[in-house]
């Protein structure tokens, strides 16, 4: 108060000193600011212009505007992945910290274009559509943070989904140049097509230090259990084709093979099976006589007959998913989408998300050498199990396979579960489709325990006003040897509980009472969404209840002898 008075008293003294120069300065500043305001307002409240404006690249940025980074030839290369890495050795858990939400924070590096010294990019495709979708999904999720200091997990924006489009050495160098790389600690790479000809390694060949790998097509020899995450190979058809869910049940074909790149040896075996079992098997291959321009990915042929793919998958109970050059096959995703039970024949393959998904309930895994016995094996499966697997297969696709978003977020959730295992999702949450979640009953007291008599029981008596009958109940109950405590809940707010027994009018038959109770039942059922009460026709009685037997030898002679 005092200060402001002082200031204002000083004010007038300053004004005369202000020259025209200052006034012009102020006016100019004011107009500039006003113009700026108007411009900002335009951008804020003119949404269409932002979306469509080609000049505005800050929001929807183009890859070509991402900063160019030149990799010196001598730039360091990370070490090859360490096979002994586990969460407790290669992962810095301190970065994730303790947080009440039990949720990890994921940072995505800003987009950069890496080129070698002569300006050739490290990847032939650059940022792929799928990887862009994946990163967008992560950035829109609860996992995302743009604060690099709070992040627990780092996702590079270098796309390594397909190893074939990468220059291995330069990609590795680019990874090592990331500002927080730190020997790959807490970095997560997504790869779906690992290895290259001729021997197709089952994990990404890019040297990556300690980085975690979410890979499609791991074998048991490259998969670091509890560290890496096995992910599916995304099928672009998932987004293109809309296959409505088909009710589980018998299908036109028993077994269907739709893959085009099956090795000769296996195709011969399949053909032999086809000869033995005829119509039950449908053995498709790519079409050779299709006119140019038709999408060959969407057609399959058998002896000149053309079938729509993936629609034809819905016509079969079982669908073969054989290993190709790689273990992971995008066909698996199509098959699951069609609600067809995958018959997976890829020895040593680590099934997608096998850490949390119970594949035994959704697929049949057969060793490659048992391919000739496939038909017999599948025939031995009870048909109700086939239906359950069909439903389960579709559910896996819907929840975990259908989009890059689903794949990415499932991967993060799995890693999250490892870091906060006590808050991990349960088997049921991962594996039960919504229909089972609704209909199943899980008893919170699931252990078959027959509690001993010793601690007895607590009687809770609710009373409103009828003190006489209350006292009668108390007298009777207190005779029971197992009674440990008796609790009376006095439910009348207008009266205090009586000190001693007084005569109060007895039970009167109240008509509205029953009506009220019926209303209660309806109200409760509507809140539960269903009627949880079940009707049974039996009642528990003592073993010798009302039997023609000496009363004094009965454990509970009073029951039934009213």
């Amino acid at each position, binding site marked *: 108060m005092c200060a402001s008075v002082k200031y204002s008293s000083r004010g007038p003294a300053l004004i005369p000193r202000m020259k025209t120069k200052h006034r012009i300065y102020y006016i100019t500043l004011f107009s500039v*600011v006003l113009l700026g305001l108007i411009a900002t307002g335009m951008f804020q409240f003119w949404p269409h212009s932002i979306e469509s404006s080609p000049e505005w690249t800050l929001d929807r940025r183009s890859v070509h505007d991402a900063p160019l980074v030149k990799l010196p030839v001598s730039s360091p290369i990370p070490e090859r992945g360490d096979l002994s890495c586990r969460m407790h050795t290669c992962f810095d858990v301190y970065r994730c910290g303790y947080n009440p939400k039990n949720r990890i924070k994921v940072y995505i590096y800003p987009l950069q274009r890496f080129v070698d010294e002569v300006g050739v990019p490290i990847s032939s495709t650059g940022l792929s559509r799928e990887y862009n979708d994946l990163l967008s999904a992560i950035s829109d999720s609860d996992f995302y943070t743009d604060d690099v200091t709070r992040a627990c997990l780092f996702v590079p924006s270098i796309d390594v989904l397909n190893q074939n489009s990468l220059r291995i050495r330069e990609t590795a160098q680019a990874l090592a140049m990331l500002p927080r790389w730190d020997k790959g600690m807490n970095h997560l790479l997504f790869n779906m097509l690992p290895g290259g*000809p001729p021997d197709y390694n089952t994990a990404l060949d890019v040297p990556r230090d300690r980085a975690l790998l979410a890979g499609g097509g791991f074998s048991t020899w490259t998969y670091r259990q509890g560290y890496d995450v096995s992910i599916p190979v995304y099928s672009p058809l998932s987004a293109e084709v809309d296959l409505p869910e088909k009710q589980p049940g018998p299908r036109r074909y028993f077994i269907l093979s739709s893959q085009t790149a099956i*090795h000769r040896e296996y195709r011969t075996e399949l053909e032999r099976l086809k000869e033995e079992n005829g119509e039950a098997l449908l053995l498709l291959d790519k079409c050779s006589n299709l006119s140019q321009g038709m999408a060959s990915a969407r057609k399959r042929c058998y002896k000149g007959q053309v079938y729509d793919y993936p629609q034809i998958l819905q016509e079969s109970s079982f669908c073969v998913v054989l290993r190709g050059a790689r273990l992971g096959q995008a066909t698996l995703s199509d098959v699951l989408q069609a609600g067809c039970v995958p018959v997976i024949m890829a020895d040593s393959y680590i099934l997608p998300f096998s850490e949390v998904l119970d594949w*035994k*309930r959704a697929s049949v895994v057969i060793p490659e050498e048992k391919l000739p016995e496939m038909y017999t094996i599948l025939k031995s499966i*009870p048909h109700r199990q086939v239906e359950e697997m069909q439903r389960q297969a579709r559910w896996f696709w819907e929840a975990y396979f259908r989009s890059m978003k689903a794949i990415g977020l499932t991967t993060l959730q799995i890693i999250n579960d490892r870091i906060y295992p006590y808050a991990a999702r349960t088997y049921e949450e991962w594996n039960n489709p919504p229909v089972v979640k609704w209909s199943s009953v899980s008893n919170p007291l*699931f252990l078959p325990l027959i509690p001993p008599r010793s601690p007895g029981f607590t009687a809770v008596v609710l009373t409103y006003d009828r003190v006489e009958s209350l006292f009668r109940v108390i007298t009777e109950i207190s005779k029971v040897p197992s009674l440990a405590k008796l609790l009376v809940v006095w439910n009348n707010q207008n009266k205090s509980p009586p000190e001693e027994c007084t005569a109060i009018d007895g039970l009167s038959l109240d008509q509205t009472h029953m009506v009220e109770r019926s209303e209660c039942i309806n109200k409760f059922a509507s809140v539960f969404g269903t009627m949880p009460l079940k009707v049974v026709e*039996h009642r528990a009685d003592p073993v010798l209840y009302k039997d023609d037997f000496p009363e004094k030898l009965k454990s509970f002679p009073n029951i039934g002898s009213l």
Partner: protein
Amino acid sequence: MQAKKRYLISLLTGASLVLLLYFGGVPGPAPATSRHERARGGGGGGRRSGQPWPHASEPFQPFSPGDETDTEEYNAHVSPRQKREVHASVYRGKRCRMDSCFDFSLCRRNGFKVYVYPQQKGEKISESYQSILAAIEGSRFYTSDPSQACLFVLSLDTLDRDQLSPHYVHNLKSKVQSLPLWNDGRNHLVFNLYSGTWPDYTEDLGFDIGQAMLAKASVSTENFRPGFDVSIPLFPKEHPRSGGERGHLRANSIPPFRKYMLVFKGKRYLTGIGSDTRNALYHVHNAEDVVLLTTCKHGKDWQKHKDARCDKDNAEYDKYDYREMLHNSTFCLVPRGRRLGSFRFLEALQAACVPVMLSNGWELPFSEVIDWNTGAVIGDERLLLQIPSTVRSIHQDKILALRQQTQFLWEAYFSSVEKIVLTTLEIIQDRVLQHTARSSLMWNSHPGGLFTLPQYSSYLGDFPFYYAGLGIKPYPKFTAVIHAVTPLVSQSQPILKLLVAVAKSQYCAQIIVLWNCDKPLPAKHRWPATSVPVIVIEGENKVMSSRFQPYESIITDAVLSLDEDTVLSTTEVDFAFTVWQSFPERIVGYPARSHFWDSNKERWGYTSKWTNDYSMVLTGAAIYHRYYHYLYTHFLPSSLKNMVDQLANCEDILMNFLVSAVTKLPPIKVTQKKQYKETMMGQSSRASRWADPDHFAQRQTCMNKFASWFGGMPLVHSQMRLDPVLFKDQVSILRKKYREIERL
């Protein structure tokens, strides 16, 4: 006036500046941030450093060109058959997997059979290893013929490979190499509890195991070959061979908190491997509800190494009783010792004290099949200081579930050496069977993997245990199986009356007559005409056990098992079936019997007297799930089944033992019209059997024989009988649904 203007100008300028900053600030990435936040439904304070991930918009190329699979190069890759052969030769030793180091063809012919080498003279075998071998030899997997075997187990004691231990077997290397069937360890299973020695406690066994599988305690994730080795728990010398103690939880308490939140009492290693965590425990100890006690007093020369805290710690250590803490704590800390696993783990599990694991890199016991997140809290040694707040943050519902799961896991897989060994074998069998292996649900929910045989069916709904969890119901009809032992001579025989009565039940799908009579089958027309199909099966060898054969023709979930002389009315059958639908995993039936401990004779007794409780419902008139036929035939050892067949007695007792061992619950008696025993036909062979005084003595013997095989008495008493609602109530008989049951 001028002054006012200037003020206005400066004020406006200031305000505009503020506004500008508020809306967009410096043109640059900021607008993107704000738009981005709106897209995510608002959010944090906008105090962010660095750039957010931009949503790039241009048309991208797909990650996989799609035509790649068509190229010649892709298609002509190495022959998969050759590839498999290469794998088998390359991936050896530490990289062994079932695909490369196990010969599946040995299991093809005879199924999963296990051979144990004969014990050599002069070889000392520790008690624990003897228990392991005995468990294998007593199991249904055992074969004494090596040519039939799929898996081989050494008779040389490999449990203790600590060179300083008195049980250490010397020259194991040469002994193993000289075994004619060793074959570089292929299809062999080597058990081990301790490996390495002071000071580094490596996981080396001191001999070359070749391609053998390891069933090892305290194994680290680094050395563990997933899908090939089996991690087993460390168990003490005194661990019972079979049966074993039950878990200590007698009743659930709600809320589930106990006196202590978290306890530990154990040795502290002042130096060397594994000392860090235990040395740091005192930071978390608060002497109230978190009691973590260590002692330095162990080993010969502890005084030499002792540090400043030792005396204080030792004093505190002696103040508390370990047992008292164990049974009164919600959580029990299980930190690593010198080796990764410790005895604390099984102790905590049995005591229903939820284990809090603090042993980084320990591949937990049976981790291949057990989901430990449901039965333990997996902590991280690096985050020791967070452990108290972590366990405090666990919701009480979760604690209740964790605690019950500890008891389930203890009783299903850990309470005896036999269970540990059988679990190990079943895990390996699951790998061999592959497509018929158990699902995770079978392993992790009651009654557990040892009682659920996947060969029976791969469909969970075919078992009696998963109906509620899957939200399904058993098939609403039953199959009656009538056990016939007397020839059909007259049309008034009780079996024909029974047939007609049962066939009239609205829930009856079919009737199977099991012809176990020496006389030939009666002609078809001798059987009464019924509305349901009657199938006559000739019993295999006409032995008792054939009545519990899992016949293909039983298509319903429920089986109504009947003796030929049973007298039952249609109403009684109907009522019993409706009761069974509520308890599909238990035996529901009429004639009840009881067992008792005869302390004079120190053995179990059997009584058929009318008593106030019962523990068996005889299978002369009982409904149960057809899965128990399969279990009876394939789970029980032939020694017990042969005994039943020879005596032609006790099959019903054995069935009750089996079902109670699986469910841990008593059977259910339902009310009946007349007293079962008195109505039995005088002239039937069965009745003469009952009259035989030996018959009763045999049943006593059976009880004791069965109890010794099960390693304890699985039967549970019940005082409850299920009657129809309104049974014998004083209301009009017309209002009662099952009125026949009351009529005499």
